[in-house]
């Protein structure tokens, strides 16, 4: 069974601060996806990283996939109150996995004005 350890579980910061969320595993994934979820809604895909060492930027969000494809990070620069929400990482094993995802436990981010 593949496991994804996501940290920290809770993050409370002031507007304008930077933050990083980590996702680590002992297993190799063919891709790593990051989602954001608002209360009462389903997760929404932010980005998918597929190549070891890949870095993707989405405005103030930077996503990195580890060289060995076992870990990933999400960095937010100058956080805003609108960034508040639950962030989830999810890994796909690839091959004959039929697209099944293994999720981390999630990080609840609260950005205070």
């Amino acid at each position, binding site marked *: 069974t593949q496991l994804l350890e996501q940290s920290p579980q809770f993050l409370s910061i002031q507007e304008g601060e930077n933050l990083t969320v980590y996702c680590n595993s002992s297993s190799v994934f063919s891709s790593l*996806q990051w989602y954001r979820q608002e209360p*009462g809604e*389903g997760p929404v895909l932010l980005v998918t990283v597929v190549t070891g060492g890949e870095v993707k930027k989405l405005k103030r969000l930077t996503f990195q996939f580890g060289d060995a494809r076992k870990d990933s990070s999400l960095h937010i620069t100058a956080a805003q109150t609108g960034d508040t929400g639950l962030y989830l990482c999810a890994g796909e094993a690839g091959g004959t996995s039929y*697209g*099944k995802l293994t*999720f981390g*436990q999630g990080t609840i981010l609260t950005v205070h004005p």
Partner: protein
Amino acid sequence: DAGITQSPRHKVTETGTPVTLRCHQTENHRYMYWYRQDPGHGLRLIHYSYGVKDTDKGEVSDGYSVSRSKTEDFLLTLESATSSQTSVYFCAIRGGADTQYFGPGTRLTVL
């Protein structure tokens, strides 16, 4: 919007009662999934389908069954609901390589 709807959106039921949740998609995707979400656990895969009448178990399948008689519908059944199955249930479809789209969820409470 990937055209995924779930019904019902909220349900309260009693222990021992059978419950069926429905996921409907409008875009003819082959792969569909059922997850449950509980605090501290992220989302965990219950069952998935890779085609009509083709289904398999996920990591937390005990107490659940699924059926897919049409491409657009994926049903999740709790044969005899227990309090440990109180959760939020999400359906998802695979929209393309390395992408999944989730429905709005069903909040189920088993008393």
